[in-house]
Protein backbone atom coordinates (compact mmCIF):
# COMPACT_ATOMS: atom_id res chain seq x y z
CA UNK A 1 0.00 0.00 0.00
CA UNK A 2 1.11 3.56 -0.61
CA UNK A 3 0.95 6.20 2.09
CA UNK A 4 1.83 9.86 2.17
CA UNK A 5 3.42 11.77 5.05
CA UNK A 6 3.36 15.53 4.75
CA UNK A 7 5.90 16.01 7.58
CA UNK A 8 8.23 14.06 9.92
CA UNK A 9 5.47 14.18 12.53
CA UNK A 10 3.15 12.31 10.19
CA UNK A 11 5.95 9.84 9.38
CA UNK A 12 6.18 9.08 13.08
CA UNK A 13 2.40 8.77 13.34
CA UNK A 14 2.43 6.17 10.58
CA UNK A 15 5.29 4.38 12.35
CA UNK A 16 3.21 4.34 15.55
CA UNK A 17 0.21 2.81 13.76
CA UNK A 18 2.44 0.10 12.27
CA UNK A 19 3.96 -0.50 15.72
CA UNK A 20 0.51 -1.12 17.20
CA UNK A 21 0.11 -4.07 14.83
CA UNK A 22 3.51 -5.62 15.60
CA UNK A 23 3.73 -8.92 17.43
CA UNK A 24 6.61 -10.44 19.35
CA UNK A 25 8.98 -12.08 16.90
CA UNK A 26 8.23 -9.70 14.01
CA UNK A 27 10.87 -8.31 11.69
CA UNK A 28 10.47 -4.94 9.98
CA UNK A 29 12.70 -3.94 7.10
CA UNK A 30 13.21 -0.21 6.71
CA UNK A 31 14.19 0.66 3.15
CA UNK A 32 14.97 3.92 1.44
CA UNK A 33 17.80 6.14 0.38
CA UNK A 34 20.18 8.00 2.63
CA UNK A 35 18.33 10.77 4.40
CA UNK A 36 14.89 9.50 3.46
CA UNK A 37 13.92 8.91 7.06
CA UNK A 38 14.55 5.28 7.95
CA UNK A 39 15.84 6.17 11.40
CA UNK A 40 12.85 8.47 11.83
CA UNK A 41 10.60 5.44 11.22
CA UNK A 42 12.63 3.33 13.64
CA UNK A 43 12.34 6.03 16.28
CA UNK A 44 8.59 6.25 15.75
CA UNK A 45 8.19 2.48 16.09
CA UNK A 46 10.46 2.29 19.14
CA UNK A 47 8.64 5.11 20.94
CA UNK A 48 5.30 3.45 20.26
CA UNK A 49 6.65 0.18 21.66
CA UNK A 50 7.57 1.93 24.88
CA UNK A 51 11.29 2.44 24.37
CA UNK A 52 12.39 5.40 26.48
CA UNK A 53 16.11 5.37 25.70
CA UNK A 54 17.16 7.64 22.85
CA UNK A 55 17.14 5.69 19.59
CA UNK A 56 20.16 6.49 17.45
CA UNK A 57 21.36 5.13 14.13
CA UNK A 58 23.18 1.81 14.62
CA UNK A 59 25.33 2.30 11.52
CA UNK A 60 28.57 1.80 13.41
CA UNK A 61 27.51 -0.66 16.08
CA UNK A 62 25.43 -2.67 13.58
CA UNK A 63 22.80 -3.62 16.18
CA UNK A 64 21.37 -1.72 19.13
CA UNK A 65 18.93 -3.25 21.57
CA UNK A 66 16.31 -1.39 23.55
CA UNK A 67 13.87 -2.44 26.24
CA UNK A 68 10.29 -1.75 25.20
CA UNK A 69 7.12 -2.34 27.22
CA UNK A 70 6.61 -5.95 26.21
CA UNK A 71 9.56 -6.73 24.00
CA UNK A 72 13.22 -6.13 23.44
CA UNK A 73 13.58 -4.12 20.26
CA UNK A 74 16.64 -4.82 18.10
CA UNK A 75 17.57 -2.05 15.71
CA UNK A 76 20.05 -3.06 13.02
CA UNK A 77 21.64 -1.26 10.11
CA UNK A 78 23.21 -3.12 7.19
CA UNK A 79 24.67 -0.02 5.54
CA UNK A 80 28.29 -0.86 6.31
CA UNK A 81 28.13 -4.48 5.22
CA UNK A 82 29.66 -5.80 2.00
CA UNK A 83 28.77 -9.49 1.92
CA UNK A 84 25.68 -11.55 2.59
CA UNK A 85 27.72 -13.63 5.06
CA UNK A 86 27.97 -10.57 7.24
CA UNK A 87 24.19 -10.27 7.33
CA UNK A 88 23.90 -13.91 8.33
CA UNK A 89 26.58 -13.31 10.99
CA UNK A 90 24.31 -10.84 12.76
CA UNK A 91 21.89 -13.73 13.41
CA UNK A 92 18.97 -11.29 13.40
CA UNK A 93 16.61 -14.23 13.02
CA UNK A 94 17.69 -15.49 16.40
CA UNK A 95 16.61 -12.21 17.98
CA UNK A 96 13.14 -12.43 16.48
CA UNK A 97 12.92 -16.11 17.29
CA UNK A 98 13.46 -15.46 20.95
CA UNK A 99 10.56 -13.03 20.97
CA UNK A 100 12.26 -9.76 20.14
CA UNK A 101 11.09 -7.25 17.57
CA UNK A 102 13.73 -6.62 14.91
CA UNK A 103 14.00 -3.43 12.85
CA UNK A 104 16.51 -3.54 10.00
CA UNK A 105 17.58 -0.42 8.15
CA UNK A 106 18.72 -1.13 4.58
CA UNK A 107 17.29 -4.61 5.18
CA UNK A 108 15.96 -4.87 1.62
CA UNK A 109 19.41 -6.00 0.41
CA UNK A 110 19.11 -9.13 2.52
CA UNK A 111 15.61 -10.26 1.58
CA UNK A 112 16.62 -13.92 1.10
CA UNK A 113 18.40 -14.08 4.43
CA UNK A 114 15.91 -12.14 6.51
CA UNK A 115 12.82 -14.26 5.88
CA UNK A 116 9.25 -13.18 6.62
CA UNK A 117 8.93 -9.49 7.33
CA UNK A 118 7.11 -6.25 6.85
CA UNK A 119 8.87 -3.83 4.53
CA UNK A 120 8.44 -0.09 4.91
CA UNK A 121 10.01 1.86 2.07
CA UNK A 122 10.35 5.58 2.55
CA UNK A 123 11.30 8.04 -0.18
CA UNK A 124 11.51 11.77 -0.64
CA UNK A 125 8.25 13.40 -1.68
CA UNK A 126 7.79 16.37 -3.94
CA UNK A 127 8.02 18.85 -1.10
CA UNK A 128 10.92 19.20 1.33
CA UNK A 129 9.41 17.57 4.39
CA UNK A 130 7.05 15.21 2.63
CA UNK A 131 7.66 11.50 2.25
CA UNK A 132 6.10 8.70 0.26
CA UNK A 133 5.81 5.54 2.31
CA UNK A 134 5.20 2.16 0.75
CA UNK A 135 4.41 -0.82 2.94
CA UNK A 136 4.32 -4.46 1.90
CA UNK A 137 4.31 -7.79 3.69
CA UNK A 138 6.67 -10.61 2.77
CA UNK A 139 5.49 -14.04 3.89
CA UNK A 140 2.36 -15.43 5.51
CA UNK A 141 3.04 -14.02 8.94
CA UNK A 142 1.16 -10.84 8.05
CA UNK A 143 -1.74 -12.44 6.21
CA UNK A 144 -4.34 -11.92 8.94
CA UNK A 145 -3.14 -8.53 10.14
CA UNK A 146 -2.65 -7.00 6.72
CA UNK A 147 -6.28 -5.95 6.03
CA UNK A 148 -6.49 -4.39 9.50
CA UNK A 149 -3.24 -2.53 8.98
CA UNK A 150 -4.51 -1.26 5.65
CA UNK A 151 -7.72 0.11 7.14
CA UNK A 152 -5.87 1.57 10.15
CA UNK A 153 -3.61 3.58 7.85
CA UNK A 154 -6.36 4.63 5.46
CA UNK A 155 -6.22 8.27 6.52
CA UNK A 156 -2.59 8.37 5.35
CA UNK A 157 -3.27 6.77 1.98
CA UNK A 158 -1.65 8.71 -0.82
CA UNK A 159 -3.91 10.48 -3.29
CA UNK A 160 -2.42 8.44 -6.13
CA UNK A 161 -3.47 5.27 -4.35
CA UNK A 162 -7.04 6.53 -4.03
CA UNK A 163 -7.13 7.13 -7.76
CA UNK A 164 -5.85 3.60 -8.27
CA UNK A 165 -8.86 2.27 -6.39
CA UNK A 166 -11.32 4.05 -8.65
Amino acid at each position, binding site marked *: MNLFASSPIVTREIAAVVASYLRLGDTVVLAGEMGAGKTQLAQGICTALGVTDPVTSPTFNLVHSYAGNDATVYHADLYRLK*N*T*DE*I*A*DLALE*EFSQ*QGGIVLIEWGDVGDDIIGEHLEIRISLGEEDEARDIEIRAVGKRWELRWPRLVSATKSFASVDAEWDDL
Partner: protein
Amino acid sequence: MKILGIDTSSEQVSVAVGDDESISASFQLASDRRHVESLIPAIELLLRNIGISIHELSAIAVDLGPGLFTGMRVGITTALTLANIAELPLIGSDSLQVLAHGVERVALQELDDAEIVVPILDARRNQVYWSMHRIDHSSSGALEEIREPRVGDVEELIEDLLDRSQRSVVLGTGAVKYIESLIEIPDLALIGERSGVRNFAFNAHLPHASTLVSLAAKKYAAGRIEGDPIAPIYLRAPDAEIQWLTR
Protein backbone atom coordinates in the same frame (compact mmCIF):
# COMPACT_ATOMS: atom_id res chain seq x y z
CA MET B 1 42.75 -37.47 31.82
CA LYS B 2 40.04 -34.87 32.42
CA ILE B 3 38.34 -33.02 29.62
CA LEU B 4 35.99 -30.06 29.94
CA GLY B 5 33.24 -30.06 27.32
CA ILE B 6 31.31 -26.94 26.36
CA ASP B 7 28.18 -27.22 24.24
CA THR B 8 26.20 -24.05 23.64
CA SER B 9 25.37 -24.70 20.00
CA SER B 10 21.65 -24.92 20.80
CA GLU B 11 19.44 -22.89 23.11
CA GLN B 12 20.63 -25.00 26.00
CA VAL B 13 23.80 -24.53 28.00
CA SER B 14 25.51 -27.86 28.53
CA VAL B 15 28.84 -28.37 30.26
CA ALA B 16 30.51 -31.61 31.37
CA VAL B 17 33.84 -32.84 32.75
CA GLY B 18 35.02 -36.39 32.26
CA ASP B 19 37.10 -38.82 30.26
CA ASP B 20 36.48 -41.65 27.79
CA GLU B 21 35.21 -43.93 30.54
CA SER B 22 32.89 -41.73 32.53
CA ILE B 23 31.51 -38.27 33.21
CA SER B 24 32.52 -36.77 36.57
CA ALA B 25 30.07 -33.88 36.48
CA SER B 26 27.67 -32.23 34.13
CA PHE B 27 25.46 -29.17 34.07
CA GLN B 28 22.52 -28.54 31.83
CA LEU B 29 20.23 -25.57 31.50
CA ALA B 30 17.40 -26.16 29.06
CA SER B 31 16.01 -23.61 26.60
CA ASP B 32 17.38 -20.65 28.40
CA ARG B 33 19.53 -18.84 25.86
CA ARG B 34 21.35 -17.07 28.65
CA HIS B 35 24.60 -18.49 27.35
CA VAL B 36 26.76 -15.54 28.32
CA GLU B 37 25.39 -15.33 31.84
CA SER B 38 25.34 -19.06 32.59
CA LEU B 39 28.39 -20.58 30.97
CA ILE B 40 31.29 -19.40 33.13
CA PRO B 41 29.44 -19.89 36.45
CA ALA B 42 28.50 -23.40 35.29
CA ILE B 43 32.13 -24.26 34.49
CA GLU B 44 33.23 -22.90 37.87
CA LEU B 45 30.56 -24.91 39.65
CA LEU B 46 31.64 -28.16 38.02
CA LEU B 47 35.36 -27.72 38.54
CA ARG B 48 34.88 -26.63 42.15
CA ASN B 49 32.76 -29.65 42.94
CA ILE B 50 35.20 -32.08 41.36
CA GLY B 51 37.96 -30.26 43.19
CA ILE B 52 40.24 -29.50 40.29
CA SER B 53 41.44 -26.28 38.75
CA ILE B 54 41.33 -25.45 35.10
CA HIS B 55 45.10 -26.03 34.92
CA GLU B 56 44.59 -29.68 35.83
CA LEU B 57 42.48 -30.36 32.75
CA SER B 58 43.98 -32.26 29.83
CA ALA B 59 41.98 -30.49 27.13
CA ILE B 60 38.87 -28.48 26.39
CA ALA B 61 36.27 -29.79 23.96
CA VAL B 62 33.83 -27.48 22.24
CA ASP B 63 30.85 -27.90 19.95
CA LEU B 64 31.50 -25.89 16.77
CA GLY B 65 27.94 -26.04 15.43
CA PRO B 66 26.06 -25.79 13.13
CA GLY B 67 23.41 -24.34 15.38
CA LEU B 68 22.44 -21.16 17.12
CA PHE B 69 24.91 -18.46 15.99
CA THR B 70 24.83 -16.51 19.23
CA GLY B 71 25.22 -19.63 21.35
CA MET B 72 28.04 -21.10 19.26
CA ARG B 73 30.04 -17.92 19.53
CA VAL B 74 29.74 -17.75 23.30
CA GLY B 75 30.90 -21.36 23.64
CA ILE B 76 33.75 -21.12 21.16
CA THR B 77 35.00 -17.78 22.50
CA THR B 78 34.93 -19.10 26.05
CA ALA B 79 36.74 -22.31 25.04
CA LEU B 80 39.42 -20.37 23.14
CA THR B 81 39.93 -18.01 26.07
CA LEU B 82 40.17 -20.72 28.72
CA ALA B 83 42.45 -22.86 26.54
CA ASN B 84 44.69 -19.88 26.02
CA ILE B 85 44.87 -19.00 29.71
CA ALA B 86 45.52 -22.56 30.86
CA GLU B 87 47.56 -23.53 27.78
CA LEU B 88 45.35 -26.48 26.96
CA PRO B 89 44.68 -28.15 23.64
CA LEU B 90 41.25 -27.59 22.10
CA ILE B 91 39.21 -30.36 20.51
CA GLY B 92 36.30 -29.40 18.28
CA SER B 93 33.36 -31.50 17.15
CA ASP B 94 30.46 -30.62 14.93
CA SER B 95 27.06 -30.54 16.62
CA LEU B 96 25.56 -33.25 14.39
CA GLN B 97 28.30 -35.66 15.30
CA VAL B 98 27.72 -34.94 18.99
CA LEU B 99 24.00 -35.43 18.50
CA ALA B 100 24.50 -38.71 16.60
CA HIS B 101 26.81 -40.18 19.21
CA GLY B 102 24.28 -39.26 21.86
CA VAL B 103 22.34 -42.32 20.69
CA GLU B 104 24.98 -44.52 22.29
CA ARG B 105 24.42 -42.75 25.57
CA VAL B 106 20.64 -42.50 25.65
CA ALA B 107 19.28 -45.60 23.92
CA LEU B 108 21.81 -48.08 22.62
CA GLN B 109 19.08 -50.61 21.81
CA GLU B 110 17.89 -48.21 19.07
CA LEU B 111 20.94 -49.22 17.08
CA ASP B 112 20.24 -52.95 17.12
CA ASP B 113 18.72 -53.32 13.70
CA ALA B 114 19.35 -49.88 12.22
CA GLU B 115 21.91 -49.21 9.52
CA ILE B 116 22.37 -45.46 9.80
CA VAL B 117 21.90 -42.71 12.37
CA VAL B 118 20.77 -39.39 10.94
CA PRO B 119 21.07 -36.39 13.24
CA ILE B 120 18.86 -33.52 12.06
CA LEU B 121 18.87 -30.05 13.58
CA ASP B 122 16.32 -27.36 12.82
CA ALA B 123 17.93 -24.53 10.82
CA ARG B 124 14.67 -22.48 10.69
CA ARG B 125 12.71 -21.39 7.64
CA ASN B 126 12.02 -24.91 6.40
CA GLN B 127 15.72 -25.77 6.42
CA VAL B 128 17.62 -28.37 8.38
CA TYR B 129 21.21 -29.34 9.12
CA TRP B 130 21.97 -33.04 8.82
CA SER B 131 24.71 -35.61 8.47
CA MET B 132 24.68 -39.41 8.28
CA HIS B 133 26.49 -42.05 10.27
CA ARG B 134 26.81 -45.73 9.43
CA ILE B 135 26.54 -48.13 12.32
CA ASP B 136 29.40 -50.59 12.39
CA HIS B 137 27.78 -53.59 14.05
CA SER B 138 31.05 -55.50 13.98
CA SER B 139 32.63 -53.09 16.47
CA SER B 140 29.85 -52.79 19.05
CA GLY B 141 27.84 -50.13 17.30
CA ALA B 142 30.56 -47.61 16.54
CA LEU B 143 29.42 -44.77 14.29
CA GLU B 144 31.25 -43.76 11.16
CA GLU B 145 30.35 -40.55 9.37
CA ILE B 146 29.29 -41.23 5.78
CA ARG B 147 27.76 -37.86 4.96
CA GLU B 148 29.34 -34.61 6.11
CA PRO B 149 27.18 -31.96 7.76
CA ARG B 150 25.14 -29.98 5.29
CA VAL B 151 22.24 -27.56 5.22
CA GLY B 152 19.23 -27.71 2.93
CA ASP B 153 15.46 -27.70 2.59
CA VAL B 154 13.56 -30.48 4.28
CA GLU B 155 12.72 -31.80 0.81
CA GLU B 156 16.43 -32.24 0.06
CA LEU B 157 16.88 -34.21 3.26
CA ILE B 158 13.96 -36.46 2.34
CA GLU B 159 15.44 -37.04 -1.10
CA ASP B 160 18.79 -37.85 0.46
CA LEU B 161 17.19 -40.39 2.80
CA LEU B 162 15.15 -41.98 0.01
CA ASP B 163 18.25 -42.26 -2.18
CA ARG B 164 20.03 -44.16 0.54
CA SER B 165 17.01 -46.29 1.48
CA GLN B 166 18.54 -47.81 4.61
CA ARG B 167 16.98 -48.56 7.98
CA SER B 168 17.55 -45.34 9.79
CA VAL B 169 17.20 -43.78 13.23
CA VAL B 170 16.62 -40.03 13.11
CA LEU B 171 16.95 -37.65 16.01
CA GLY B 172 17.34 -33.94 16.74
CA THR B 173 15.14 -30.86 16.81
CA GLY B 174 14.75 -30.98 13.04
CA ALA B 175 13.67 -34.63 13.15
CA VAL B 176 11.02 -33.81 15.75
CA LYS B 177 9.80 -30.75 13.87
CA TYR B 178 9.42 -32.49 10.53
CA ILE B 179 8.61 -36.02 11.70
CA GLU B 180 5.25 -36.03 9.93
CA SER B 181 6.96 -35.71 6.54
CA LEU B 182 9.92 -37.89 7.49
CA ILE B 183 7.85 -40.79 8.78
CA GLU B 184 6.57 -41.41 5.24
CA ILE B 185 10.05 -42.68 4.39
CA PRO B 186 10.21 -46.49 4.62
CA ASP B 187 12.28 -48.00 7.46
CA LEU B 188 12.74 -44.71 9.24
CA ALA B 189 12.10 -44.25 12.95
CA LEU B 190 12.48 -41.40 15.38
CA ILE B 191 14.75 -42.27 18.28
CA GLY B 192 12.82 -44.04 20.99
CA GLU B 193 10.19 -45.38 18.63
CA ARG B 194 11.58 -48.85 18.01
CA SER B 195 12.60 -49.54 21.59
CA GLY B 196 9.72 -47.68 23.20
CA VAL B 197 12.18 -45.64 25.26
CA ARG B 198 10.53 -42.42 26.33
CA ASN B 199 12.67 -41.13 29.15
CA PHE B 200 16.17 -40.41 28.01
CA ALA B 201 19.01 -39.58 30.33
CA PHE B 202 18.98 -36.14 28.75
CA ASN B 203 17.26 -34.45 25.82
CA ALA B 204 18.10 -36.82 22.98
CA HIS B 205 17.26 -34.18 20.40
CA LEU B 206 19.95 -31.69 21.33
CA PRO B 207 23.73 -32.13 21.45
CA HIS B 208 24.96 -32.68 24.98
CA ALA B 209 28.36 -31.85 26.50
CA SER B 210 28.78 -35.31 28.03
CA THR B 211 28.73 -36.85 24.54
CA LEU B 212 31.12 -34.14 23.37
CA VAL B 213 33.50 -35.06 26.20
CA SER B 214 33.52 -38.76 25.39
CA LEU B 215 34.07 -38.05 21.69
CA ALA B 216 36.92 -35.67 22.53
CA ALA B 217 38.43 -38.11 25.01
CA LYS B 218 38.65 -40.76 22.31
CA LYS B 219 40.40 -38.30 20.01
CA TYR B 220 42.71 -37.22 22.82
CA ALA B 221 43.61 -40.81 23.71
CA ALA B 222 44.37 -41.52 20.07
CA GLY B 223 46.51 -38.40 19.85
CA ARG B 224 44.29 -36.87 17.17
CA ILE B 225 43.98 -33.38 18.59
CA GLU B 226 46.32 -31.19 16.61
CA GLY B 227 45.21 -29.03 13.76
CA ASP B 228 41.48 -28.95 14.42
CA PRO B 229 40.41 -25.52 13.22
CA ILE B 230 38.41 -24.02 16.09
CA ALA B 231 35.87 -21.79 14.38
CA PRO B 232 32.09 -21.85 14.13
CA ILE B 233 30.60 -24.07 11.47
CA TYR B 234 27.83 -21.92 10.02
CA LEU B 235 26.82 -23.98 6.98
CA ARG B 236 24.84 -21.33 5.25
CA ALA B 237 24.11 -20.18 1.74
CA PRO B 238 27.23 -19.32 -0.27
CA ASP B 239 28.60 -15.88 0.46
CA ALA B 240 27.86 -13.20 -2.09
CA GLU B 241 28.51 -9.54 -2.47
CA ILE B 242 25.57 -7.42 -1.40
CA GLN B 243 23.94 -5.79 -4.41
CA TRP B 244 23.79 -2.21 -3.25
CA LEU B 245 21.52 -0.23 -5.52
CA THR B 246 20.55 2.83 -3.53
CA ARG B 247 23.33 3.22 -0.97
